[in-house]
């Protein structure tokens, strides 16, 4: 029973929103390699969505392109979600390990990532009056991913529904705190770097004299 390859597990998890992750957990299936691939595709998807969307739906600002916001919107956001969820749920008697949270969360991103690519392609075939189809695909992908994400967290930690909701809300709060600390750390590092650099230049002047 359930002797699936890793690729088949991906399909099983996505198309069985309610028991897919339970089966995966039971069989200890899921690979980090696939998870990271999905997150990378998510990152590429956000860039593609912003840059290659058909002109009559979306005007991208062509004067300058900065990759950092896209990294923050995809990879950093995902990492912060995983770490935030892990740190909250270890305190709330969650059974999930960091690896399992990461794999389950990444798998549940699949419908949304697919929607990003599909809508981008669709935008080049449809006119503005037909944009309802694009919205439809986008929101189905988004809703599906949310449902999967909910069940992923619920399964990974073996929670009840209410406890999952509480855990997700707390995770969001934890994410905000982590982001805040990240900004603080970054600015601190910046200050330290400037400090070290100014000492270096000062020494250079003295040595020359």
């Amino acid at each position, binding site marked *: 029973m359930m002797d699936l390859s890793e690729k088949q597990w991906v399909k099983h998890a996505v198309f069985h929103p309610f028991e897919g992750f339970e089966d995966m957990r039971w069989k200890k299936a899921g690979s980090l390699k696939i998870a990271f691939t999905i997150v990378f595709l998510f990152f590429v998807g956000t860039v593609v969505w912003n840059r290659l969307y058909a002109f009559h739906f979306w*005007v991208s600002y062509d004067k300058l392109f900065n990759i950092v916001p896209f990294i923050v919107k995809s990879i950093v956001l995902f990492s912060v979600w995983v770490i935030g969820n892990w740190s909250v749920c270890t305190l709330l008697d969650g059974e999930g390990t960091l690896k399992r949270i990461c794999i389950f969360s990444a798998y549940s991103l699949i419908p949304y990532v697919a929607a990003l690519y599909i809508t981008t392609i669709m935008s080049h075939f449809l*006119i503005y009056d037909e944009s309802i189809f694009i919205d439809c695909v986008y929101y189905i992908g988004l809703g599906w991913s949310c449902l999967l994400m909910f069940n992923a967290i619920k399964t990974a930690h073996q929670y009840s529904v209410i406890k999952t909701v509480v855990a997700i809300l707390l995770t969001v709060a934890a994410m905000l705190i982590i982001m805040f600390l990240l900004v603080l750390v970054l600015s601190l590092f910046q200050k330290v770097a400037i400090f070290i650099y100014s000492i270096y230049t000062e020494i250079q002047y003295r040595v020359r004299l």
Partner: protein
Amino acid sequence: MQDILKKIFAGMASWVCALSMLTGNVSADEAYDVYNYDRWGEAIPSQAGYLADRSVSGLELGIGDFSSPSDIFRADDGMFYIADTGNNRIVVVNSEFDEVVDIIDSFEYNGDKLTLKNPGSIFITDNTLYVADTDNSRVLRCDKDGKVDLIIEKPISELYPSELTFLPRKIVVDKAGYVYVVVNNITSGSVMYNNKGEFVGFYGANRVEETSKVVWNYFWKLIANENMRKYMTDAVPAPITSFDIDDEGFIYTCSDSLTQDLDAIKKVNAAGYNLFADIETFFGDASTPDYSNNPNNSYVDIDVNEDGIINCLDYTTGRIFQYDEDCNLLFIVGSSGNQLGTFRQVSAVESTSENLYVVDSQKNTVTIFEQTVFGSIVHEATRLYNAGYYDEALEPWFEVLKRDGNYRRAYIGIASAYINQGNYEEAMKYAELADSQWRYDRAFEGWRTEFINENFMAIGVIVLLVIIAIAVVVIRKKRKGGRKS
């Protein structure tokens, strides 16, 4: 010997001539940076649509200096009427602006002699003069000989608060002889009189901008009692500062309020509704993308010429913002400063289809801007485009692009023309350059329809093949599954 000297002198003279011509060319450049807005709303250098030709003072016209002139009006016969406010007179100048035709400073009314006191505005229609005699709190209607047949005074009505003064600043008269007067302490619009001089009502008020004050007032009124309400102040709209009327009878108003942007420039129909309210556009300078620098445009005068082109005069920066009838920015002219083409304190603007006339009430001059070749091509193209002759406008638009490849209106015009012609592929290209999404959408729709019509067979075959391939895969899978069980 003398010959040699002569030759040397002649040579020097020719050099001096050449040099002066060179410097002359340099000074023909504008005293300010000419700019326009690109499709991102960012200021970029642009070709000048107008160049300052000369500035005319009262001394040059031989009538003594102007004294804080505050209005200029061009009559149908081409004569210019200048309200020379500080000198209490109206100066009439010929259409070339080099000779004074008449000076009007006294009027006759039922045998009495009337004089002006700081006249603020003048309007002429059908050989009838209307003078806003500001500090005498009246508006005079007279013929060209100065015979007054009607004096309009402060309205006696419940609608007009009796404690308020009546100082008419600007006047406009429509075809029916109705007189509209801007009084700068009234926020409910201009004061409107019928052709018998009777007060009719107010016209063309601005709307109240939804500021935090409006919201707070709403909130407080929910809980305040009568006594508290007495001390509350209402949020009022910005009063209008000046206006103009076009050939079809629409009135255009402007407002110099620095705090309220809403209805700063508007076109009012007979019902008092702002026709520019639904057009997605902005007037004046744009704020920088990071909102670090917000423009403080305050419009003191507005002018509409016979082609429907709107000139808005900005007091803060001394600039004239020129728009076509659909509120698309055409040119930005002028700046603040002391050189030719720049201003210290602008007060009025008037235009013909070629020239702009700007009154500076501190320099006491009228500056004349002449349309450049570039300006004339843009105007020609705009006129054709707005009249619906898209194909005819194509050639001038390309000419515009040759001279200024950043001119966004040209790309819009070309895209529209190509959509009209059914040249959808080119239209898509130009619509994208013009940043016009809905034109791109229209062109794309046309292109797609054409593409499907031309390749219907190929598409049908591909779709059929895909369906067959899917069917084969599904059947094979089912057979496999069947064997397994």
